[in-house]
């Protein structure tokens, strides 16, 4: 009985949480301009989303978002991994200072990060555009990469690295053949986290994107919504994003559960 009520509560909450997304998904299969009008089943919005034409600016916004996310995540992963190796080998107050510095961007609200960088760029006189958005994304993503890689370094047996050196490996070989393979899983989850953070970001982007006409998905939606009429093609787009994330997360979860079971079985 207790279990029944508990489950009912969870499903009720989920129903409320998913109702808005569900409505968007349902109305992505009809042509009506105004959401809520059902004018018969149609996949026209899906085809017109990808054929461009009138909605060319939406496509280029998606493209910009992806390019920025990939470049920013890649730079963050490299910078963050190198930093994590350094921090791991620091002791005492130096380490505390680095950890505190690393925490600042994560504790700062997005709007503060955005405004502070905006003030930096305008006072130095840098024109804002692609480069500044990528730089800004690297700044708030890197701390998360550091936090993903550090636990890997802590789990690693540091003697392996020393052993490689003793056995005649050059420091470079030791890094490539011993250190990097050990921290690779942390680097991968750091990259994924940075990528999703970058795609999701709105507040930092809008302050660093400048007035050169560059648009990401977030700023496109924002401008679109302010104009009043929402581009109907945003409905299929939101649906696609939602389904992709759902499938991705469930696969990752099922895979890691399976891997855990395997590990347990091997352990026995």
């Amino acid at each position: 009985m207790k279990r029944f009520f508990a489950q009912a509560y969870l499903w009720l909450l989920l129903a409320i949480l998913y109702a808005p997304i569900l409505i968007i998904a349902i109305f992505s299969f009809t042509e009506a301009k105004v959401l809520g009008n059902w004018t018969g089943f149609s996949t026209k919005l899906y085809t017109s989303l990808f054929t461009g034409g009138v909605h060319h600016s939406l496509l280029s916004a998606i493209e910009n978002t992806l390019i920025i996310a990939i470049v920013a995540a890649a730079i963050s992963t490299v910078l963050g991994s190198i930093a994590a190796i350094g921090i791991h080998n620091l002791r005492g107050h130096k380490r505390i200072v680095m950890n505190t510095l690393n925490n600042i961007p994560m504790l700062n609200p997005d709007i503060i990060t955005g405004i502070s960088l905006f003030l930096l760029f305008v006072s130095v006189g840098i024109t804002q555009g692609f480069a500044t958005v990528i730089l800004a994304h690297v700044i708030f993503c890197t701390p998360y990469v550091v936090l993903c890689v550090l636990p890997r370094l802590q789990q690693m047996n540091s003697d392996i690295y020393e052993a490689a050196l003793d056995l005649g490996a050059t420091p470079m070989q030791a890094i490539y053949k011993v250190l990097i393979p050990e921290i690779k899983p942390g680097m991968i989850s750091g990259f994924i986290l940075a990528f999703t953070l970058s795609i999701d970001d709105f507040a930092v982007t809008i302050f660093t994107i400048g007035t050169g006409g560059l648009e990401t998905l977030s700023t496109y939606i924002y401008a679109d919504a302010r104009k009043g009429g929402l581009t109907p093609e945003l409905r299929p787009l939101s649906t696609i994003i939602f389904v992709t994330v759902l499938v991705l997360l469930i696969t990752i979860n099922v895979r890691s559960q399976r891997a855990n079971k395997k590990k347990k079985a091997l352990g026995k």
Partner: protein
Amino acid sequence: MRFFMRRQNWSLPYFIFMLIFVVLPLVLIFIYAFQDADGNFTFDNFSKFISSPEAANTFVYSIGVAIITTVVCILLGYPAAYILSNKELCRSKVMVVLFILPMWINILVRTLATVALFDFMRLPLGEGALIFGMVYNFLPFMIYPIYNTMQKMDHSYIDAAQDLGANPINVFTKVVLPLSMPGVMSGIMMVFMPTISTFAIAELLTMNNIKLFGTTIQENINNGMWNYGAALSLIMLVIIFASELFSDGEEERASNEGGII
């Protein structure tokens, strides 16, 4: 070359990077806040804030909205986190994923979905939509940290309390609640902070009728009032710093163990 072979020096580039792009910009907010448009030192930006009813009212209103959102999120999220972490009540891990999933969807898309829902149900946009939208946006951020702490909780404490004769209410108030407090604290930070600092969302949910403090800051910066905008940002930073002191580092401990992937 030998300098870079010492691995602790690998943190140096990141240290310099952080100084230039994190510390310096924050210092700039501070400097701009105490300057007039010509760069002279002044307190005018702050006295303007205190004397202008609009900005001050928005500020108080935003804190109110943030508090209500946080309380509603605790009331809805705590039972959910409890059920999710309890193996007898919820066996499937997929359930947890379903609750966390909305965190990965763009906040503007989520907000537009809320607007769509209200339009669809013919409900008026306004204060109700604002609170619903905020709770809808940030509820997963309350559930996840509480769920995380509860899952790591040592259940032998609960067994011990029961063996020693505590009734279910006592078990909850004396054992479960105190042990889950770090998660609740972390959840409060993760809901209160974004709610108070969001912009754009409130306008979309209320058809530009209600403004929150974040929007006021953004408008000032956009209209070239950098010094006043910086002063307002500094006020927000102080509030956030104060609430971080209040949560007493508990949040940090909990969040460092986060990360679902």
